């Protein structure tokens, strides 16, 4: 398979500087666009390519860009292009690799995106913990300014763009695009009501596009080599390649660039090396912590947005989290709900009050204090907290996804916790044992 996004990323994962990036075809897409393509042409190529957003929602990128007012239909003032580099979805670890190893690919994608929508200011909104990526992106930006690839009149084209690396002060919710915009404005990162959509009224009330790191990394290649080429890269119905990852107790956890539509079994068994010795596959979250569980019967499905959607889950970030047969499914869902309850911004009631309630019910079941009625309570919570429209943003519905599918596929495990009055999994017991020793040992 042809490597596109990772063509500059070797096994040592050393960073690619400007010279090495350009030597391998870097900034050719940008030069081509500035020389011979109008912003409208660029938007059309991206639309034709069927590129879908790699942050998790899978929204068509070209369509997103098409909502930005252009020319006379836009009031005078700034437009903004923001890269969402706030990778915090539990189990997602793909954008870190792209930024640490090939920062110029992201920058070129951002310049092209900004050119297409007519933005003159751009930000990489990156989580503060990504210190290596921050340093390398800043180094790459300095190289670009020194070489005329950023700033006034880029490569003599008349197009100008300023770009800033903006490290975040934390919180998962900043990955939601309107919350991210509030964070950029120096406010609490509560998501905003939509409409208005950021494409029309985003940062400081001006047209703003927020795209994921991986999405933007695709742009230079599509502009350089065309939509038809890009569509041939996928094995199924979706275009291009995708960063897929596997974490959990497999032999070779990692992150690989593979064609869209690669079967889950191939990702898990060939690339991740299968389960660790002595463990069986019980289920998996196909695209991060806020996606529904799938089970071994789904292994032959293609990792395409619609295929995974039809199976009752979402491809999300494309980073699989593996549940083995010696890890407690109730404990795993409890861990996820604890995360989401903690990361709720607190703005709306179902999320702020509902998720801690769900966490408490699950904690009771996990600790052996559960009652049969608790399962009805969980189903009720899934119904009302999980319904889109009951909450201000998608955090709480996302949190309910692993729970609702765990109740479907692992119902026996919930029952065994309740009937047995304890967690039946040895691994959990070992953890508990250790906690108790520490708690009482002093």
């Amino acid at each position: 398979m042809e490597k596109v996004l990772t063509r500059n990323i070797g096994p040592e994962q050393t960073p690619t500087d400007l010279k090495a990036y350009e030597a391998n075809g870097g900034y050719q897409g940008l030069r081509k666009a500035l020389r011979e393509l109008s912003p409208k042409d660029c938007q059309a190529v991206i639309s034709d390519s069927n590129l879908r957003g790699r942050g998790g929602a899978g929204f068509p990128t070209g369509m997103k860009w098409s909502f930005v007012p252009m020319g006379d239909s836009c009031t005078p003032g700034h437009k903004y292009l923001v890269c969402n580099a706030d990778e915090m979805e539990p189990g997602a670890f793909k954008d870190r690799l792209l930024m640490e190893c090939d920062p110029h690919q992201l920058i070129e994608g951002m310049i092209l995106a900004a050119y297409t929508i007519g933005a003159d200011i751009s930000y990489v909104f990156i989580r503060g913990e990504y210190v290596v990526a921050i340093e390398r992106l800043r180094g790459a930006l300095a190289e670009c300014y020194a070489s005329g690839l950023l700033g006034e009149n880029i490569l003599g084209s008349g197009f100008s763009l300023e770009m800033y690396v903006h490290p975040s002060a934390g919180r998962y919710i900043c990955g939601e695009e309107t919350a991210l915009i509030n964070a950029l404005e120096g406010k609490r990162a509560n998501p905003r009501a939509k409409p208005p959509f950021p494409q029309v009224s985003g940062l400081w009330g001006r047209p703003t596009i927020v795209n994921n790191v991986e999405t933007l990394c695709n742009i230079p290649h599509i502009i350089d080599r065309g939509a038809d080429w890009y569509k041939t890269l996928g094995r199924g119905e979706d275009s291009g390649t995708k960063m897929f990852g596997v974490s959990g107790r497999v032999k070779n956890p990692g992150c690989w660039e593979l064609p869209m539509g690669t079967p889950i079994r191939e990702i898990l068994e060939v690339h991740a090396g299968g389960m660790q010795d002595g463990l069986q596959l019980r289920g998996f979250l196909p695209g991060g912590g806020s996606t529904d569980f799938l089970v071994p019967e789904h292994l032959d499905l293609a990792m395409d947005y619609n295929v995974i959607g039809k199976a009752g889950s979402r491809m999300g970030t494309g980073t699989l989290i593996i549940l083995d047969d010696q890890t407690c499914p109730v404990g795993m869902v409890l861990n996820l709900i604890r995360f989401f309850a903690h990361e709720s911004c607190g703005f709306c009631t179902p999320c702020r009050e509902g998720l801690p309630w769900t966490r408490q019910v699950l904690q009771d079941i996990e600790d052996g204090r559960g009652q049969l009625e608790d399962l009805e309570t969980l189903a009720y919570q899934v119904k009302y907290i999980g319904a889109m429209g009951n909450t201000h943003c998608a955090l709480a519905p996302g949190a309910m996804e692993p729970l609702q599918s765990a109740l479907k596929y692992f119902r026996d495990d919930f029952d065994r916790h309740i009937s047995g009055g304890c967690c039946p999994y040895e691994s959990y017991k070992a953890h508990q044992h250790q906690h108790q020793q520490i708690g009482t040992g002093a």
Partner: protein
Amino acid sequence: MNDAQMIQTDLGTVLTREEIRQIDAELAHVPYKAGAAIDALKIVQAQRGWVSDESLRAIAKHLEMSAEELDGVATFYNLIYRRPVGEKVILFCDSVSCWICGCDAIKAKLSAKLGVDYGETTADNQYTLLPVPCLGACDRAPVMMVADDLITHLDEAKIDQLFADVKAEDSVAGGEQ
């Protein structure tokens, strides 16, 4: 700080000239001063380690916003510290992939070794232990950050090795396995 570096405000709170220089540089990018609130908090925290009530009031005054509004921003973000922290902050990942790979036991070991739980600082003021959302290194789980360093493939032996210099009296003796 000495007096020459300080600018007195009416609340008796102070920002250094260097802090003001850095904050004012951020103001060039925002349409109104409160827009630089998070940047200003980070600038002051970088100098002082944390954001005290006095620091908060000084920043708020400089940004022409109320201290209460700024505190609403400061307390929202987990990397802004409104209480003192140790020399190094440990950001311990307890999200799902690290949990599957046994981070609860590592956390117990770490807590025992340092004698602190989440939100606490060691007696020698070296380390503050905090939980953090998924660190995005799930293929190398369990992981944590110690100051700016990402530490991967954690196990109990690695905790012993990393914190070998922590004095015995600072740790919870009974917690040793």
